[in-house]
């Protein structure tokens, strides 16, 4: 093992190399580009034994790695934002075909107007597609999740593709120390590729022709069942990774100070770091708050959140995305799980890279807690934490120019 100072993107690239990926294909988009630039460099220098296919679009990038995976090779791609939306059709195709492969998604806002900063809208747009979707908090975790993704995705109980989410710039372009294991250690931990079928003259297998509607529906159910099974596999992989490499994250949810908490912050991604700092301050002021960081958006950690819901007085959810005309997508999942058992506030914040600091999190959390303590049960599904220049002013005053 070696400690390297790596950006989140390079951390992903190192993990891909150590996973002995055989086919890489991608199309450039900020802030994903440095992942594939690094991989291209490794391959051209002969440090990585793989083929790199420099395609003409993201739709083709995912189709290419899908073709490669179907023919038996471990394959990887990466994208972000518009690239992810452009390949959306293929995203569904790969999951429907139950083809294990791994894609890094450097989550970024969607235009117009053009915006290259962090936002979870792109990754939530893939929520229902049948991919396992994880979100890293820091570079080390982006590395670990990438390596784990191959093992999870290729587990016969799962056989679904997996996205590793890491955030624009905050992780992708910021350096941090990353503990990178040796090839030998990785080889001992990561089994050779397994997959449900291979398409080749040896198998004469056909994937994707029409089936009776009833069989189609049963195949859809099987994806749902695989998602369910993936929960256990994710936890197993987390534990065995912990044993081998010394880092275990808690499975689908990483809980910080949840045990004695009266209130819980639910959040995903790098700004969970701010939430973790916020609860330290809140606790000093006598607010017993914990953080449940969602590591996996899919499969949804139903049991973990349900257990918390029956213990606490309130849950505040932070979304960096909106389902327009409804609420924050993370909130929607939480609310379904909570099923009225505790107070809820859904905060929408930080869109398009708008800064959210510890103080912001403290402020809205405290306000929520005070309200619950005063009024009893509170249900506020949509609470916009407005950007600093607009906050605290009446909406009619600051907002009219936008509509």
């Amino acid at each position, binding site marked *: 093992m070696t400690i390297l100072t790596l950006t989140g993107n390079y951390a992903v690239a190192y993990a891909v190399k150590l996973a002995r990926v*055989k*086919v890489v*294909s991608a199309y450039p988009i900020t802030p994903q580009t440095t992942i594939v630039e690094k991989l291209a460099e490794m391959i051209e220098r002969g440090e990585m034994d*793989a*083929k790199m*296919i*420099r*395609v*003409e*679009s993201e*739709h*083709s*990038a995912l*189709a*290419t*790695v*899908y*073709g*490669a*995976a*179907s*023919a*038996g*090779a471990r*394959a990887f791609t990466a994208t972000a934002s518009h690239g992810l939306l452009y390949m959306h*059709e*293929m995203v569904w*195709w790969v999951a429907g075909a139950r083809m294990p492969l791994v894609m890094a998604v450097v989550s970024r806002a969607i235009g117009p107007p053009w915006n290259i900063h962090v936002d979870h809208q792109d990754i939530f747009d893939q929520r229902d597609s049948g991919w396992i979707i994880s979100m890293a908090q820091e570079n080390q975790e982006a590395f670990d999740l990438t390596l784990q993704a191959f093992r999870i995705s290729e587990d016969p109980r799962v056989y679904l593709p997996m996205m590793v989410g890491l955030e624009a710039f905050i992780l992708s372009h910021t350096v941090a120390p990353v503990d990178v294991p040796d090839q030998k250690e990785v080889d001992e931990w990561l089994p050779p590729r397994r997959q449900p079928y291979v*398409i*080749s*003259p040896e*198998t*004469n*297998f*056909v*994937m*994707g*022709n*029409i*089936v*009776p509607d009833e*069989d189609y529906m049963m195949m859809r159910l099987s994806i749902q069942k695989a998602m369910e099974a993936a929960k256990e596999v994710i936890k197993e992989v987390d534990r065995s990774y912990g044993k081998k490499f010394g880092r275990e994250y808690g499975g689908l949810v990483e809980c910080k100070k949840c045990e004695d908490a009266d209130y819980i912050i639910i959040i995903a991604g790098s700004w969970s770091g701010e939430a973790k700092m916020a609860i330290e301050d809140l606790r000093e002021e006598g607010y017993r708050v914990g953080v449940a960081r969602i590591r996996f958006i899919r499969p949804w950690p139903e049991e973990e959140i349900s257990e918390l819901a029956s213990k606490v007085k309130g849950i505040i959810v932070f979304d960096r995305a909106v389902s327009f005309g409804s609420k924050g997508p993370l909130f929607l999942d939480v609310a379904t799980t909570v099923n009225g058992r505790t107070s809820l506030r859904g905060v929408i914040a930080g869109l398009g890279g708008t800064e959210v600091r510890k103080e912001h999190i403290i402020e809205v959390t405290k306000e929520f807690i005070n309200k619950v303590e005063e009024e009893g049960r509170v249900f506020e599904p949509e609470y916009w934490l407005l950007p600093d220049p607009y906050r605290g002013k009446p909406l009619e005053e600051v907002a009219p120019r936008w509509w």
Partner: protein
Amino acid sequence: MVIIHKLPNRRYGMPGNASCPGCPESMGLRYLKMALGDKAVLVIPAGCSSVIQGIGPKSGINFPILNIAFAAAGAAASGMKAAFEVQGKDYIVVVWAGDGGTADIGFQALSGAAERNEDIIYICVDNEAYMNTGIQRSGLTPYGAWTTTTWTGKKEHKKNMPFILIAHDVPYVATASVGYPHDFIEKLRKAAKIKGFKYIHLHAPDPVGWRFDSSLTVKVAQLAVQTGMWPLFEYERGSFKLSPFSKKYKDPSKRVPVIEYLKIQGRFKHLLNKPEEIKKIEEYIERTWWWIDLLERSTNPAKTARELLNK
């Protein structure tokens, strides 16, 4: 040379395949397998051939097949080939795409794969419309043809895909027709031996979409060649060559009048007694042969740009 009785006598279109009577795509698939045998894998984007396979979990086409989203065939095939290569397997990856999956929505992935000189065979099965969705106009529908989105006849000419691929300067480009199976099989076998990107454009008259009797597929296909509407040729290693069946039609006086081709198809019914419309189609034929003449004369029997790089 392709000798009929030496071709494999196996069944490739199985009972339960869902093609229409007289379907040129199922004919083409059979020739494909006769030519390439058991080493080929098919990549099929959305289109009639996704349906012809019949109902899963079985398949009416005796091939390993990766079905793929409409726009993605060139890319998926590139990935498959790379995967076979890293595993040391010399399988032939063949895209089998309709005219829409080739010239319209699939064009970007096709052009990308050609530019990268991927070692695959790309076949455009050209029935001159989106047949699977019910005969809508495509970029390869000819001038004047009725479709369900051009009720009074298409107002534009067909886009010349083989020439566009020649402009990519890939090692092999050919046209073929389901009316001339030996020629198609020979071209496929040749393509399988060439390294790099191979493009074969297979003309595939469709009784349902073109409105002719299902017994006439071969006849209509042959008339397309005999009228000069569909010249058979090869562009191989930088040199352009008319194929034997088309050679004599270089001379316009040898060509069957185009009206013979048009009048047996319902899709041209509305323009049969409009001489000015027929003239436009005749001019299109002239133009096509003008290009061919140019290519023949400027032939450079060196290697293609892409092959030179591979040296």
